[in-house]
């Protein structure tokens, strides 16, 4: 079989594990801060949703144009359905990170009033997330 499409074998096979830490941390100062990172994560999730839609559209183009390609239809549907379910699950987990951050800020606001503006931004991220779900 010809291998014509691009494939990132290194990233595809990379073992992806959550890290463990010794203490709770909410760092809104360094490296762009938590809110900045959460916002970037949300953007990437939305980009991936759009890519899946484009891929689905391209598959449909082939199947609709040429009957021969209907043989591939069940495989195409399975790929798109599973990818869509995955990105929905990713979006829910991301929403849970934002909710957890919101709870953490609520708990710490009594001792650090500067976190009030973070709470506003987290609530905006949560609202955006629920719109895209």
């Amino acid at each position: 079989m010809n291998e014509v499409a691009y494939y990132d074998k290194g990233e595809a096979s990379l073992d992806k594990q959550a890290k463990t830490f010794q203490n709770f941390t909410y760092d809104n100062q360094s490296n762009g801060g938590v809110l900045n990172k959460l916002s970037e994560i949300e953007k990437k999730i939305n980009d991936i949703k759009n890519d899946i839609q484009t891929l689905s559209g391209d598959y449909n183009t082939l199947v609709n144009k040429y009957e021969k390609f209907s043989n591939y239809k069940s495989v195409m549907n399975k790929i798109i359905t599973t990818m869509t379910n995955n990105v929905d699950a990713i979006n829910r987990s991301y929403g849970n990170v934002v909710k957890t951050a919101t709870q953490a800020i609520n708990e710490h606001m009594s001792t650090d009033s500067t976190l009030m503006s973070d709470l506003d931004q987290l609530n905006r991220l949560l609202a955006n997330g629920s719109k895209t779900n």
Partner: protein
Amino acid sequence: MDVNQKEYDYDEIIKFTGAGGELDQVLSKLQSRLKKLREKINECEPLFHGKGNTSSIYKCYKELYDKIGTDSASGTMWFNTKNSYDLINLMNTNAVSDKNKDF
């Protein structure tokens, strides 16, 4: 003309599924964004985390990484990206083969 040639335009499919074609471009973008998403989660972890591996924050990050997954972990984003890559290559190979049969 062979009956196969009437079924579809080989050259169109070879271009559509080949390197730099529409499907290659969208799959490349998807892979790049999956990598970026993993990197962003990676960068977020040191900034916001709980204690140990039983905290609710750790579980959220674990779910995110598990769903992105690897190409050998069934049902994950990368597993299906690999399936899509294999399918595109298969369609391209078949189109090249069908074209060669006719010439």
